């Protein structure tokens, strides 16, 4: 592997990095095109524009337009049916120019080789993930997020695998690998194994979730450290955010991961040649694939790079948690049956006993009302904040982004007042049977939702199950109500989010103060809504339309009169 071994290439790379280090407010499209063409690639550009639903305060953008540049290395004697992607997301503020330089050097090196069997696409996207999303949608000729973009002129068949590269500084002390994608999707474990193999071969220091790999598994430190890594991965996956540009590729069944060069660890230091060698090795291996990666796991949790927890091990945990709901529902159903069957059997055959049929009818109506009202609250949480942002911004001294978040919280809190408002519909006849029936429905509803979520995104399902199941199981209108109320509020979806944020920062060894936590919470809410609209992340609609109404049902049960 003679990458950068000759001084000419090394000098060229140095020149590139120097050029790219100049302050850079927009992507130097013309320069990139020229450079890519000069190394012998087919170069194309794609322009895109997107108006976000409300201003993104974290990235400071609202109306976004940019240009993606990509060059295709055509494999000789191949009919452009398969390709690999090396992508470098660039933003106006991002400092990813080292990655661009490395990518161009790799492109120049790859172009001179004759063994390529798949086309290789070198992609530089502007506005990091937005550009990636625009490019992917145009490449697959779909439009799922309302992105406006020009059609792609050059294509290279079905993408088999993709690697995203982010280098924040020219000194790389370790390579961090990110696997969690949009909605908690994960790439095939073999891709990760491939990366780990080349890390070991090149003697690179590799980290997962920013944590060093535990060396000593016999003492308590090693397992403890891997539990921390595991928890970080669970939180990261549960958030449903793409943890790097690779996350968007996974939706199109392209195995992908993000490599991040990190400059934080003490005496280790690598130049870009080592990173380039690892990348070259990965691409050569992927080039030799006859089929897509499919032999290994798609569902796993990672306590360390070299170890994984397979789905067969972790799924029973979630199953037992959900079993609690099922058993509780069974118990309620039997209680209902015992309470209802006795009198009904007495009068059911004659069909003329006046008090019993109304009991049935009222029970159903009293169930319908809370169900409908809580679903309507969920719909309001989902729709109103974005729809009413301008009205809110006009009448209150807040910006649009703040307006969205505050409206969201206000509607969320207003849902807590629900039981008092629905009392006029609820009959007072047979109060015991009423709340039991409602809780039965709520338990089944929750169990079904959590089971579905767990199947697609285990971390999210498990996190929600662990927080919501105990409170849901014990809630009833009698007994220590304030205690139950406190428990329910603490395990509501929003509170779970807040708690997760604190836990996350705690695990990253950067603990939050209360005020910081609140600010982070507001930002996370805004990001969640925004990611649903820009990338199609499902966490926000799931919480707003599914779990929040379900949680309101339990709140209703608690305050049943």
């Amino acid at each position, binding site marked *: 592997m003679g990458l950068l071994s000759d001084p000419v290439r090394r000098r060229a790379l140095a020149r590139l990095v120097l050029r790219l280090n100049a302050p850079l407010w927009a992507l130097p499209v013309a320069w990139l095109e020229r450079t890519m063409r000069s190394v012998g690639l087919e170069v194309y550009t794609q322009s895109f524009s997107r108006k976000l639903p409300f201003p993104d305060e974290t990235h400071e953008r609202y109306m976004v337009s940019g240009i993606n540049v990509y060059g295709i290395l055509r494999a000789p*004697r191949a009919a452009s*049916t398969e390709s690999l992607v090396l992508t470098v997301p660039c933003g106006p503020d991002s400092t990813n120019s080292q990655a661009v330089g490395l990518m161009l050097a790799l492109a120049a090196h790859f172009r001179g080789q004759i063994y390529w069997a798949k086309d290789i696409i070198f992609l530089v996207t502007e506005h990091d993930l937005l550009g990636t999303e625009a490019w992917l949608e145009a490449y697959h000729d779909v439009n799922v997020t309302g992105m406006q973009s020009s059609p792609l002129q050059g294509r290279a068949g079905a993408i088999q695998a993709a690697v995203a590269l982010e280098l924040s500084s020219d000194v790389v002390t370790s390579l961090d690998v990110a696997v969690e994608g949009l909605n908690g999707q994960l790439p095939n474990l073999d891709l990760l194994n491939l990366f780990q193999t080349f890390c070991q071969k090149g003697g690179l220091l590799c980290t997962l979730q920013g944590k060093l790999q535990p060396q000593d598994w016999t003492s308590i430190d090693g397992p403890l450290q891997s539990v921390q890594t595991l928890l970080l991965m669970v939180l990261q996956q549960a958030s449903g955010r793409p943890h790097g540009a690779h996350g968007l590729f996974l939706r199109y069944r392209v195995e992908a991961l993000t490599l991040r060069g990190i400059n934080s660890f003490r005496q280790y230091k690598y130049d870009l040649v080592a990173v380039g060698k690892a990348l070259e090795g990965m691409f050569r291996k992927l080039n030799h694939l006859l089929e897509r990666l499919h032999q290994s796991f798609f569902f796993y949790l990672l306590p360390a790079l070299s170890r994984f927890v397979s789905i067969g091990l972790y799924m029973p945990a979630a199953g037992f948690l959900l079993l609690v709901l099922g058993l509780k529902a069974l118990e309620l159903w039997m209680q209902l049956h015992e309470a209802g069957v006795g009198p009904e059997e007495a009068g059911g055959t004659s069909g003329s006993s006046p008090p019993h049929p109304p009991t049935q009818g009222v029970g159903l109506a009293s169930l319908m009302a809370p169900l409908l009202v809580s679903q309507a609250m969920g719909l309001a949480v989902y729709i109103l904040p974005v729809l009413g942002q301008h009205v809110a911004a006009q009448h209150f001294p807040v910006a649009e982004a703040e307006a969205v978040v505050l409206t969201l919280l206000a509607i969320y809190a207003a849902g807590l007042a629900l039981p008092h408002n629905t009392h006029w519909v609820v009959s007072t006849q047979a109060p015991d049977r009423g709340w039991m029936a409602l809780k039965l429905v709520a338990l089944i509803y929750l169990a079904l939702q959590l089971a579905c979520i767990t199947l697609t995104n285990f971390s999210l399902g498990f996190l929600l199950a662990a927080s919501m199941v105990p409170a849901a199981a014990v809630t009833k209108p009698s007994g220590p109500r304030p205690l139950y109320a406190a428990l329910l509020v603490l395990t509501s979806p929003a509170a779970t989010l807040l708690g997760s944020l604190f836990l996350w920062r705690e695990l990253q060894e950067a603990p939050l103060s209360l005020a910081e936590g609140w600010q982070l919470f507001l930002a996370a809410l805004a990001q969640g809504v925004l990611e649903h609209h820009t990338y199609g992340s499902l966490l926000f609609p799931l919480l707003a339309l599914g779990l929040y109404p379900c949680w309101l049902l339990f709140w209703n049960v608690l305050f049943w009169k």
Partner: protein
Amino acid sequence: MAAAVRISLLVLLLLGPGGWGQAEPPRDSLREELVITPLPSGDVAATFQFRTRWESGGGQPWGQGVSHYRLFPKALGQLISKYSLRELHLSLTQGFWRTRYWGTPFLQAPSGAELWAWFQDTVTDVDESWKELSNVLSGIFCASLNFIDSTNTVTPTASFKPLGLANGTDHSFLRYAVLPREVVCTENLTPWKKLLPCSSKAGLSVLLKADRLFHTSYHSQAVHIRPVCRNAHCTSVSWELRQTLSVVFDAFVTGQGKKDWSLFRMFSRTLTEPCPLASESRVYVDITSYGQDNETLEVYPPPLTTYQDVILGSRKTYAVYDLLDAAVVSNSRSLNVQLKWKRPPENGYIHYQPAQDRMQPHLLEMLIQLPANSVTKVSIQFERALLKWTEYTPDPNHGFYVSPSVLSALVPSVVAAKPADWEESPLFNSLFPVSDSSSYFVRLYTEPLLVSLPTPDFSMPYNVVCLTCTVVAVCYGSFYNLLTRTFQIEEPRKGGLARRLANLIRRARGVPLL
């Protein structure tokens, strides 16, 4: 006396050639040609064409039972007479011609294997002949053409016209098939080379060295057989076999950025002697200078003649080296070429034949007029379905190929071409029939498409589950059937006809039936 003898000798000498010409059977002829075109991207394309003409059977090309072969390969000659072929076109291609970067190709071919044939109207069962033909060709060319069956064969109605002499175009005698996954390698090149009269011993075919030809960006070899007119008045017909081979050398990789090339550097061979059987053996080098940049090109050795014509709608200049001219043949030649390329610019009929599952593929043909400088997008929606479990290939996760689509067009020429004598013009210019001089024919192919279908997990547990379920279902089903079925003896009906008649009458009368 002496004078008289001399005169008679003279007369004999004068008559001699004519008399032999009458007595001797018509001669076959071989023309060979190599065109080297520097492409606008800096790559170099080399196109070989070998044309063998078979003057068989006294002007009747469909004459059966001709058994005299001289230059024409016997394998193909027998094929023609056995299957009553009128035209045969077979191409084997590895790679994809990138029209955007390389310009319009002389010879178009889709990636993989493409076979299309016109049968004579005496053939009764076209499908059967087609099947046998593809199997025989599969053996001749060592290619997997035997995988051509009804599921990938279509009968286009608009796009594929006969290229040779044709008196009727009934499309029911046309069959067309593409195998996009076919891989082309030396095992296909060797039988192709063996069809050449000089094999690879002399002439241009010396350059056909497998390890160099497959060290390229694009490799396409083809065989075209068609009937052509023997002379300008078309009084008699002869068979024409064209063997073509196009390769594109990647100048970037081999030349380290320079655009220089030489025959030796490309093929690791030089031309030393012409093929003694060839009546014409020429090398054309595209030296058209487009006059946009002041780039100079130098050709060594300097060509003795040049040839100018309108090729694919633009005027081109070629340096011509005639190998039969002894002055030309030297040990090596090289030339430096630097060129800029100018790309030539570019009523409703829709024929759709829907697919039948596992029987025949979809066929969609559209005749559309494209406005200038426009982008036309034809999109087809499809659903991914689960296949039957025996239909998966050994590598199901690789995906399934969809054949490339074909675009045939008569493109108006920028420069009017002068009508040239068909027989005199170089081979690369005369494969496709030109109806008038104001337009030229182009056929383009798109890339094949790789579609990944939903695949079950073909691992051991899956197989175990499948097998167990099948066994249980079969055993359980038959046992259950045996245990629960009750057997009864049915009484044979008596008086079938009489009873039926009686019932008819009763029905007419409105009385209950018997």
